[in-house]
């Protein structure tokens, strides 16, 4: 399973020019705020359209500005766990979870409802509405919702950044389970060394819109720790 991303675009005075290839189970995109991490994964999801770029996941071409290929977001099959969870406020947890399954043909579904509920411990939450969930619970539901659409790649945009430390510790084990048990690779955006060190199998270090370094987590962790120290 290979993820290949290349994007060049300008947003105001910010310039993104990033290229990377990864075949990790959980690829962390690491960098400080404003480095272009979210811009980059929005391009992968098709929520942003770069001036020039190419995105291919497991051999499927999703974007290639040179060949005029730009598959719309709804047909890319890329799950997205947003920073602020973005659960549908008018639907119960159960119906939030089932939302994506509805648009996935039966033959393509690999995530079973019961399995995902068990993986993320969502059983007690199913009947509630999003306003009745804690921040950590919202993010777990949000991960479950993305998984149940059976995506080929899961994007997570700092899913823990809005949570306090206790909540972070509560959600972290689920992210590890997701990495080890779910049959989908993830891209995990973060500016936290601790999260990256604990979760990532490979790391892409991004600074000022460019990829500064990338490689397997074993060789990258020391590098990002050093960078974090110099900040």
């Amino acid at each position, binding site marked *: 399973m290979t993820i290949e991303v290349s994007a060049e675009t300008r947003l105001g005075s910010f310039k993104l020019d990033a290229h990377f290839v990864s075949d990790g189970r959980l690829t962390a995109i690491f960098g400080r705020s404003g480095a272009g991490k979210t811009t980059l994964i929005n391009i992968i999801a098709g*929520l942003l359209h770069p001036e020039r770029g190419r995105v291919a996941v497991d051999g499927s071409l999703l974007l290639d500005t040179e060949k005029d290929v730009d598959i719309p977001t*709804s*047909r890319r099959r890329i*799950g997205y766990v947003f920073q602020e969870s*973005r659960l*549908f406020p*008018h639907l119960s947890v159960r119906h939030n979870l089932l*939302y994506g399954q509805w648009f996935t043909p039966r033959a393509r579904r690999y995530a079973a409802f019961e399995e995902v509920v068990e993986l993320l411990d969502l059983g007690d939450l199913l009947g509630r509405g999003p*306003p009745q969930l804690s921040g950590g619970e919202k993010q777990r539901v949000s991960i479950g919702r993305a998984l149940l659409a059976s995506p080929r790649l899961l994007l997570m945009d700092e899913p823990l950044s809005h949570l306090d430390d206790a909540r972070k510790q509560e959600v972290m084990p689920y992210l590890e389970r997701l990495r080890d048990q779910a049959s989908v690779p993830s891209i995990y955006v973060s500016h936290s060394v601790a999260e990256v060190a604990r979760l990532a199998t490979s790391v892409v270090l991004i600074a000022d819109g460019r990829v500064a370094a990338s490689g397997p987590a074993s060789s990258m962790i020391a590098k990002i720790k050093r960078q974090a120290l110099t900040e």
Partner: protein
Amino acid sequence: MLTLTQQETEAILLSLRVAIVATAASLPFGILVAMVLARGQFFGRSLLNALVLSPLVLPPVVTGYVLLLLLGRHGPLGSWLAEYLGLVFAFRWTGAAVACAVMGFPLMVRAIQLSIEVVDRKLEQAAATLGAGALWVFLTVTLPLMAPGIIAGAILCFARAMGEFGATITFVSNIPGETQTLPTLIYTFTQVPGGDTAALRLTFISIAVSLGAILASEAFVASVARKVRAE
């Protein structure tokens, strides 16, 4: 004092029918125009906005007269509709419905437009990443979240239609059993000696219906808003 004559019952039922038809028939257009005004960016947007709002500020007699010129039997639109579709509006109850719909339209569009502007577009993006195409995003996310505005808009339009006088009497006159609505009948009673009791009776009914509509709208909107309150 409390028994209604046949003429009065007829006028009340006609008013209800006119208001219901006017509201139901204009609702799809109201949603469409509100969407275009809230989301669209095109040349002539302010002009469309002014056109939609104009019945609010024009004297109703002017609106009624314009309708008569356009949709009257010899009007450019009226003669075409009569010839090709067999639709005649002038001096018919259907014409009263058209007049009421035009007068209620700005209130309806305004309420719906405001509710579209508060729908979080990030939720629409989330739906797209789960596989929902544009039409499904609209039907399953945007439309339910703007429901409070749609209900408020429909009820305001209904209440306006129940009370419409100037445009109705100018366009379709005041024919008992055909175009004599509650307000035009009250007007008739105030013009004849001894009509005071009947006018007063109908005035009470008119006040009750209008206040009831507003109260129902407020209660309904409050209950829906509780349900879809953003996280």
